[in-house]
């Protein structure tokens, strides 16, 4: 096994255990790992962005391939930096105007088409569907998302939730029943989202524990065992030191 892999295993194990130590209580090991994470991710992003954008997409094409037209987006981009010079800060508005204009122009029609029109189309599907061998029929299969009964459920769900958020009419009488139905649908949606969130968080824990088990192997030098002992030892030391400290005067 290469030395880089072994060093990587030790670093990964140590940082995982340091982060997990927060579950006991906040401590300097956790702070170390947290700050390293922020620093490394920002550093990585800066280096990758510099290499890809400045070197490969700007410098090389202009200097080596003489693609002078690239100077136009570079100039627009540089206008952003005038924000740091108060007297010339107004120039940055041109860059922002360009970005907002192009961004809105691209995003608004596409978003309306994809998330509003297409979803409305799917919400108001025909109640009767063509079933092979049976002709046009109302299908009752709850497990089939395209069945007629599910179309009715979705229609009721969308309408009642929209009504619940319609505050111009007081939710009394029949309106109260519709709003309560809307709440019911919302609760089911929140429950499903929470269930998936729990699953996702547990998956992250499984991922870290899988790595810790793998790195407890002798071929890596058993970093899990040694660093777990180090983490526990440090937590005990910090806890004892905290107990021995005289109480702070108010």
């Amino acid at each position, binding site marked *: 096994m290469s030395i880089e892999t072994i060093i990587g295993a030790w670093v990964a194990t140590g940082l995982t255990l340091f982060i997990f130590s927060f579950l006991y209580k906040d401590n300097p090991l956790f702070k170390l790992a947290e700050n390293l994470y922020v620093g490394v991710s920002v550093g990585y992003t800066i280096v990758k962005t510099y290499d890809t954008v400045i070197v490969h997409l700007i410098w090389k094409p202009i200097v080596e391939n003489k693609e002078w037209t690239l100077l136009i987006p570079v100039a627009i981009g540089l206008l952003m930096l005038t924000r740091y010079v108060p007297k010339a800060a107004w120039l940055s508005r041109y860059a922002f105007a360009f970005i907002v204009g192009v961004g809105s122009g691209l995003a608004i029609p596409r978003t309306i088409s994809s998330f509003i029109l297409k979803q409305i189309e799917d919400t108001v599907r025909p109640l009767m569907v063509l079933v092979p061998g049976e002709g046009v029929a109302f299908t009752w299969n709850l497990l089939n998302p395209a069945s007629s009964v599910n179309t009715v459920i979705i229609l009721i769900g969308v309408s009642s939730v929209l009504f619940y958020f319609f505050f111009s009419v007081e939710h009394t009488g029949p309106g109260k029943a519709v709003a309560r139905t809307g709440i019911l649908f919302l609760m089911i949606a929140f429950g499903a989202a929470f269930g998936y969130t729990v699953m996702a968080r547990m998956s992250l*824990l499984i991922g870290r524990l899988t790595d810790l088990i793998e790195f407890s192997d002798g071929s890596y030098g058993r970093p899990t065992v040694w660093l777990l002992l180090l983490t526990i030892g440090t937590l005990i030391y910090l806890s004892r030191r905290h107990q021995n400290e005289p109480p702070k005067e108010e």
Partner: protein
Amino acid sequence: MSFAERMLKIDRRIIFLVIGLCTLLPLLYPVGLPIKISPEVRAVYEYIESLPEGSVFLMSLDFDPASKPELYPQSVALLRHAFRKNLRVIGMTLWVSGTGLADQIMTQVAKETGKESGKDYVFLGWSPGGTAVIINMGQDLYSAFPADYNGKPTKGLPVLQGITNLRDVNYAISLGAGNPGVEAWYVFGKDKYKFELAGGCTGVMAPGLYPLLRSGQINGLIGGLRGAAEYESLIGQKGKAVAGMDAQSATHLAIIVLVVICNVFYLSLRKTARQQGQARA
């Protein structure tokens, strides 16, 4: 203090320990619970199965190491399947912080299956612009990515022969952990350039993507570690996701039990308080 009150005020670290043990023990001693394949995962598998050899498969690994436990097994399983089917694979990422991980995944699976960079697959890396990159690729793939991740010019690469833009892609999948991800690929990619699209995502994102699945905007969805385990089962190469499923089931069971117990204690406390109130009156 009653038993119910004491239990409701239990040190949260004990709960952490219980959840930790419920995760760790099944990982150490797996029991191999059965994995049921969902239609949305099977749809992705069957679409790739139906593609003829040499078809163009674009995989956008739109995640960073923070989502590795869920999306790494998905990407490995999909790549193994695509390489086994001898598809031409184009890999890329819209997340700058995920570039190194995406390259590592592509290289590792290609090496394992004996595929050659530039001939059987290409990893384009990252390009700035987020969703604008998708639009740029839809117009001209080579202007969005003039060179691949290793610096080789993309024009002339055997794997990209006959491909000019996204319209030449037979099947695309975005493995997304946020934005830009699956939704961006639909809005700025499939909706405009008309290629078939599927999604892979973290568990947190899955409920938000089901409406796209039902409306046919994506033809399949692989959600979280469970989705990855289903895909691993479908291709017959069980990996990290399948290994984690026992632990997932055990922790879910533990959480359900904890939620039920907490509610029982809460209701019993409320009942006691009500009885005490009536006795005083």
